[in-house]
């Protein structure tokens, strides 16, 4: 039976890595906003981090099975919230992504949906475990479960966030026991499905973003501009970097939004290859630590939840850093633990809180 969980089992090592990365993040946000009108964003980020830490500790005391039990209700609520965003959301920069709540809080449901989806998918596939493989029906149901919020978010339109739901589904299918044959069929089907999606679903600016990363110089004034400036910033850093607050691309406002989506470019310019490689190493250590926690989880849903978090994190890292160094199109996905932004910080720390609870519950039973 369950014992009281204690801080002896709290993952201080993981928290240490995370906090180290957060400090790097705050310093880089300070540097990147030094000469802009966003000059106090580093302090705001610290408040978000503080809030995130508190949420993480609170969540680490809530049994994750409780979350699994309310997952369906939460899922339903999320769908309603996404529909509400489309209906009454604030229109910012051509997309409806926010709901303005009383008290001046801007609520962006699509970030929370990620967390709920991780839990819901974990619950769904853990229920199917032990039946000897997934049927096509199981697969389509899971696809519908993830696909519905994905379409709603795409409608906002927010391609970046919508894409982050995909690794949750893929991770669930992989760990939930999809057979290799079905996986191959699915991959082929997806390849064929891309053609109508490209022509019907994607907006012209989204298509342009995707194509322009391949040849950033063909349109240096349009979508290629961001990639071009980002590449220059990263390359300008060299091995050792230009030094904090000394990157000309970052400080001269050539780099677009250097405190959120392109923070890694700003960081790479000012701290060079050595600094960038150290940050990637930190990510590696964090992810390995998370997988270790997944392995040691007490039950299958615990493992699936932690691996869902891992999948989302590695996907975001790959897409964001890949974009910054010109290997991926511009999709507007923030870099977890580095980019400025309350929703992103809260998602990461809430997810870590759940992971902490899973880890602390590993000897329970």
């Amino acid at each position, binding site marked *: 039976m369950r014992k009281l969980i204690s801080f002896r089992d709290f993952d201080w090592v993981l928290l240490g890595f995370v906090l180290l990365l957060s400090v790097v993040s705050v310093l880089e946000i300070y540097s990147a906003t030094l000469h802009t009108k966003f000059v106090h964003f580093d302090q705001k980020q610290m408040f978000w981090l503080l809030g995130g830490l508190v949420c993480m500790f609170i969540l680490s005391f809530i049994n994750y099975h409780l979350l699994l*039990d309310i997952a369906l209700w939460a899922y339903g609520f999320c769908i309603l919230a996404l529909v509400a965003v489309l209906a009454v959301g604030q229109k910012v920069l051509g997309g409806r992504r926010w709901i303005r709540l009383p008290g001046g809080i801007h609520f962006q449901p699509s970030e929370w949906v990620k967390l709920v989806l991780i839990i819901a998918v974990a619950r769904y596939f853990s229920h199917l475990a032990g039946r000897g493989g997934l049927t096509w029906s199981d697969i389509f149901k899971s696809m519908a479960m993830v696909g519905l919020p994905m379409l709603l978010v795409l409608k906002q339109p927010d391609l970046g966030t919508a894409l982050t739901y995909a690794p949750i589904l893929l991770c669930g299918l992989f760990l939930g026991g999809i057979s290799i044959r079905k996986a191959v069929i699915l991959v082929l089907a997806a390849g064929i499905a891309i053609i109508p999606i490209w022509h019907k679903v994607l907006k012209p600016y989204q298509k342009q973003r995707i194509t322009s990363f391949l040849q950033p110089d063909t349109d240096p004034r349009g979508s290629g501009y961001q990639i071009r400036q980002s590449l220059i910033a*990263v390359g300008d850093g*060299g091995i050792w970097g230009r030094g904090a607050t000394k990157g000309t691309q970052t400080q001269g406002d050539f780099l677009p939004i250097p405190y959120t989506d392109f923070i890694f470019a700003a960081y790479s310019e000012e701290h060079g290859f050595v600094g960038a490689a150290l940050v990637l190493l930190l990510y590696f250590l964090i992810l390995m630590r998370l997988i270790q926690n997944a*392995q040691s989880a007490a039950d*299958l849903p615990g493992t699936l939840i932690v691996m869902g978090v891992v999948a989302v994190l590695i996907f975001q890292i790959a897409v964001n850093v890949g974009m910054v160094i010109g290997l991926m199109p511009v999709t507007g996905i923030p870099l977890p633990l580095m980019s400025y932004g309350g929703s992103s910080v809260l998602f990461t720390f809430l997810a870590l809180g759940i992971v902490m609870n899973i880890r602390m519950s590993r000897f329970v039973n």
Partner: protein
Amino acid sequence: MTNPARHSEEKVPAIKLAVFQYLIALVLVILISGLWRLQVLGAQNYRALAQANRVRKVPILAPRGKIYDREGRLIVDNYPSVTCFLVPEQARYLQADLPLIASGLHMDVEQIQSTLRHYRHTPNYQPIPLKSDITPDELAFIAAHGNELPELETIDEQRRLYPSNGFAAHLIGYVGEVSEEMLDDPRYAFYQPGDVVGRSGVEEAYDPILRGQDGSRDIVVDSHGRELGVLGTEVPTPGTSLKLTIDLDIQEAAEKALGQRNGAIVAIDPRTGEVLAMVSRPTFDPNDFAIRIHRDEWNKLINDPEHPLLNKAIQAQLAPGSTFKIIEAVAGLQEGIAQNLIVDCHGGENFYGRFFKCWISARHQSHGITNITKGIFQSCDVYFYTLAEKLGIDKIAEWAHKFGLGEKTGIDLPDEVAGIMPSPEWKMRNYHQKWFAGETISVGIGQGAIAATPIQLVRAIAGIASDGALKRPHVVFPDEVPASLREYYQEQFPGSGNKTVPISYANWVTVTDAMSQVLSFAGTAGFAHLNGVDVAGKTGSAQTMSNALAQKLGHAHTMDDNAWFVGVSPRRNPEIAVCILWEKGAEGYLSARLAAQVIEAYVDKQRRLGNNLRPPVQKRAVGTPHTPNAPAPRTTAARAQKTMEMAGVWNAPADSPAAIAGQRAFPLPPAPDGQPQVLRGARFLLTPSAASTTPHAVQQR
């Protein structure tokens, strides 16, 4: 366990988690290799790109050199001005911004669009000049909209300020944007598109001296073009100022003399070839070019049938008419034909089966017995028909070429034309036709295919009056040109240059004396006589086209003739020579009066400088039968005959030392101590009384 469906015992196989681990490692390795490619292998390249991103070279335009007259009086100045540029690269939504830009700069959107189209092939980072000479409120608009319209930039420069009303416009020329054809020319390799360059006159010819070396400021900017700091400054070198040979006083007199008449005036100092004044009409205002000229105005200028942009002093090639007789007279005398040639003018003569009229026949008169002197001052056509027949076209052409007709003078102004000196060889070469003997007769009075420019005529006749010493006319003192460029200018303006045509002493005296008599009552330009000033010259009235051709072209009236006059003062070794071309001025003596105004301005100035006031009118010789202001009756042949004797008195005897020296003879008031006193600047006084009664007042040539 509340949920029975939970399969706590199920575990994810370790192998699947290991797959995740490898996958993550693979992703991170790919990312790190991407970083390596950019930051280690491409560092230099991207460092340069980052540098180019943030450092902008802002040109500091060098002011052009100012232009002064020979006495250092300012003719062309500069004034500070601001030009607005558009940098397409810096625009966010250029097309959307256009209405705002247009309203702020008081332009049409269409106008901006066409400017952008014009520059559509230039790189995006290159600033496009949008509007020159913007007003303070337009400047304030640009400054106030720095955030909304980051694409607008301004640049300070010095603009040209020319004299108003087209004063000396053809001589000075104007500046304009360098054209694409010019950029292909190695002479203009120095320039970038959009640079301002001299396009005409002195501005073009002396552009290498007048232009300076632009400097630049390397400024650090952010992505909005906002200045963050200055890296370094390259100081511009201003252009060198230039001193022209033009004398503003003479230029002003010439401008005033020509007034609104179409034509040209050019005055030179025959001793050096320095151009003292140069006027062409109709004129234009070069200030219109200093700011970008509007297309309509430009079209108006270039389509004007009067060709206001043409500098007629060096670009009008017209039949010289009777002024050519001076050259022919020298040829006739030098060939030994004219001395003994006496012709009886009956108002015309038959040559080669065709009757050639003398101009005087229009007045139902004739010149009667005529020698070379009378032939010149009465401009008897029959005399010169006969002389031309005896000389033959080859000799005429040879002498005309000696005096520079049919070739450029080499004046240091762009686009001088060479004129035409016809000859059988020339006709065969250009028209593949044989020369008709009758054509020689026409050429004898400066008609037919012969064409000369005012600068050619003034140089030729001034050269004859200077005993055959022809100078290359120029508008800039040679020592103003740096030694390194002198050869360049020699090659740039080829022409017959400085040369001396030997003329025998007696012939020189004969021709110059006859030219002097042109301004006597007996001469064709008696009206232009200046009291107390030794002026010699030759009138000419040249048909612009033959009357037969005019009728064929449907002109109701016969065309008025072009009125020429070439005058020198004093008659031998002159200090000033003036050529007047008054298009459709009808009569040469009318032009002579314009020349007299210019010469008078020069003489007055010289006297003023020497503090030698003009002698009062009473001092004039008793018996001088007219005052300058009273209209003299048109000389009839009979009266001319009579007044010739008086003219002989009026002019110094040909063998008197004063007349031979030609100049520097003037009445000297006895000095208090009884010694003669030589006054500087008083050398134009050559009244009959002076010449005959003051034998010691002679200076040697």
